[in-house]
């Protein structure tokens, strides 16, 4: 385990009657990127602003690099926290050119060398004298990154930095920013509402809801083993189906699967079904359909289907273009999990190994 760079202990913050951040504990190791993902209003931006020092917690402790930044006795001002921050809209200084923006906080004698190498790093050598309004959105964010790296911050905070960009540029700049952060061995917290982005950027993922951390872990773990039903639905975009566990089997409306468990367990639960675990086929004479195609959305290389099962539950799934099923037609849905399945028993998570 590496050294701890950011540590939050029982941090809370209210605005009026709303608990924007509610008793949050977090640890980020040196050189690691933590993605905080959650729906809008979940408190993720507030949390970031508390770490930066723009707002102050009502209670708790905040340490950066082992030094207390905020607790009952300490309140280090924004300027002294040695953090960098990148905002959604870049927030470049509109009256300064690219070079002056990057060199804003550096000593005069270091400006030339530092700014030059940073410009090269973000690939904007040719635009050093341009004004912010002459740059594209992606270029503005690159300058913002260079500007915050220029002061050698001990941590970097990124508040939805790509959400104003076109989808094509977003993918490109994501990988670029990640590789630059890794090059600098930078400790970073990256806030987003897009789970795809969180997965791609984060070494760790923290899932936030109503001011609290619902789940934290490496991306694979959070994706494949959601701890709450919210995590399964929001982050994994999984279907939740009613199921019955009985006689060592898990039975849903569309399937019956053997589990490696004690045969005496018997109860109704909710089953997490990932879109990739479902397949559809046209119904035939030998087999009657168990669902109708309610909606089909063309997504380029795949189709996104919404089905209504005959018991009125709905499921989403993705299927390749080779087998096309028309809207309104009766189909057979097959469910084939491997490894283990996740169920929720009145909100508590249970996992079962598939036999």
């Amino acid at each position, binding site marked *: 385990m590496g050294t701890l760079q950011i540590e939050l202990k029982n941090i809370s913050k209210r*605005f009026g009657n709303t608990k924007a951040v509610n008793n949050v504990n977090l640890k980020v190791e040196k050189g690691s990127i933590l993605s905080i993902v959650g729906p809008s209003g979940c408190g993720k931006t507030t949390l970031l602003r508390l770490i930066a020092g723009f707002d102050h917690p009502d209670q708790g402790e905040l340490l950066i690099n082992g030094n207390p930044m905020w607790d009952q006795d300490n309140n280090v001002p924004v300027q002294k926290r040695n953090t960098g921050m990148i905002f959604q809209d870049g927030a470049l200084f509109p009256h300064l050119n690219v070079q002056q923006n990057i060199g804003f*906080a550096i000593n005069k004698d270091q400006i030339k060398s530092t700014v030059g190498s940073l410009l090269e790093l973000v690939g904007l050598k040719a635009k050093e004298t341009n004004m912010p309004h002459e740059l594209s959105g992606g270029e503005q964010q690159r300058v*913002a990154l260079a500007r915050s790296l220029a002061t050698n911050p001990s941590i970097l905070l990124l508040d939805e930095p790509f959400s104003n960009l076109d989808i094509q540029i977003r993918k490109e700049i994501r990988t670029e920013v990640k590789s630059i952060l890794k090059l600098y061995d930078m400790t970073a917290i990256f806030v987003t509402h897009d789970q795809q982005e969180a997965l791609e950027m984060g070494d760790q993922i923290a899932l936030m809801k109503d001011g609290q951390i619902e789940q934290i872990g490496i991306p694979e773990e959070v994706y494949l083993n959601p701890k709450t039903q919210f995590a399964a639905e929001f982050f994994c975009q999984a279907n939740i189906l009613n199921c019955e566990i009985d006689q060592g089997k898990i039975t849903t409306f569309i399937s019956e699967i053997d589990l490696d468990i004690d045969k005496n367990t018997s109860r109704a639960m909710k089953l997490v079904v990932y879109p990739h675990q479902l397949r559809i086929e046209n119904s035939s004479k030998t087999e009657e359909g168990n669902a109708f195609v309610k909606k089909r959305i063309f997504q380029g290389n795949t189709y996104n289907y919404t089905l209504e099962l005959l018991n009125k539950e709905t499921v989403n799934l993705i299927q390749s273009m080779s087998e096309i099923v028309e809207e309104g037609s009766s189909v057979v849905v097959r469910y084939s999990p491997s490894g283990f399945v996740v169920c929720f028993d009145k909100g508590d998570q249970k996992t079962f190994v598939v036999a």
Partner: protein
Amino acid sequence: MNADVSNKIPRMLLLPAVFVVFLSLLPIGYLFIRTFGSLSDLIYILFRLQVLLIFIKTALLVVTVCSSSMLIALLSCWLVTRTDIKFKAIWSGMLPMPLVVPSYVGAFIIIIVLGPKGMLQKALEPFGILNLPDIYGFKGAWLTLTFLCYPYIFLTLKSAMENIDPALQEIAQSSGYSYWKYFLKIELPLLRPAITSGSILVILYTLSDFGAVSLLRYQTFTWSIYLQYQAAFDRTLAAGLSLILALIVILILYFESKMRKNGYYYRTNARASTSRPLFKLNKWQIPASIVLGSILLIGLIIPLFFLMYLAFQGVVTDQVPKNLLSLSVNSVMVSVITAIAAFGAGSSIALITAKYKSRIAVLLENTSYIGFGIPGIVIALSLVFFGANYANILYQTIPFLIFGYTIMFMPALIGAFKSSLLTLNPRIEESAKILGESEIGTFRRILLPITSPGIYYGMSLVFLLTIKELPVTLILGPLDFGTLATALWNASEEAFFLEAAISGVVIIVISIIPIFGLNKLTNERSLWVHYK
């Protein structure tokens, strides 16, 4: 987010702002206390027929000026924004311009042209017309103020009309509304807030005007106050009238702030890119141009033409005021100092009101605006009372005069500075802080350079307002001190019309200078806004 507890106003900002607001309320507060102190005398004086007459005359002028300005503004604004009238850019650039004509210049021209033995009468004499209807009194004041005031409604209305989403018209017409039904049922209600806020400006202007009503001898509150102040040994009536006028204005300001709270709902997406279907004028093209042309002719061209013509005659006949240079220097000097003082005094209030939403911030903003709304003559009188009792050394000195100007015009700077602060993305300021810059450093390196066009704009406004100011200068100025404005007023009171015209031309020329800088800067600023 709700009220943020940590968003407390820093003391460094709050203390100077409270101090400034306190200072600016001091004279008016003193007027209230003093007048209420002698309440029994006051009631006896105020319930005289004379006061009722003043009230009725003032109300008559306010109502008529407001309705005629509204008509002119609505008609001209509709022609400029909603029809295919030719030379649209020229019309919409020229129509607000009568705003720069000081009211005493407008009144002075009316007297010259339409007065007894005026130019029009002389021109008509060969045709046997020896008497024109009397221009002094209500008719002259109404005519002058209407053509000086309509730009206030025109400007608020124009931006509102441009901001209305063109799609509304398409939707209405596609659901079977005729153009006029759409205009009356949908557009006009949407424009009501803009018309109201423009009208409030017109009402305040008319209530405060001293130059036009004094030259045209129409007894509204302002001129009556001045007459009482000059003539009577006992100044209780002047104080009482000032108090009534101040109360009326405060009532209007209160009503306005209530209305502002209800929100201006005309603001829709200004970037709506569908172009607006324009009303085709066809054969009405020429009559419409004649209408706009005559508005400009009466409001701008005739006054300026005669002013320059008379000034030219004055120069030719060697009637240039001997002290013209020193008058100009005085005018420019006090205006520049006032602009700087207004920035010094107003910037902390602007910063607070732009950045904090607390109750104190709202209170500070509203009270600082009282000085702007209250007529100059009332401010001047209350300063006279206050100065005579508590600041005898300062009384009738230039610093005291500038103090009076600053109370009155600082809100113009606050407004301009505040609106440019509001266009500034708060993340930009936070970026500077997280990069290690202190509060003061952030102000110096980020806020100040980015908002400098707004500050410059605000200071120019204060400069313009001060250079045109009349009643405060007349009352508070040192005995041997004159500005171009007071020289013009004195000269036309004594019928030295050519001399007056020369001062008028110089005022207008000096006022134009900062406007040029203004255009250049607003262009640059629009670029920055574009970036945002």
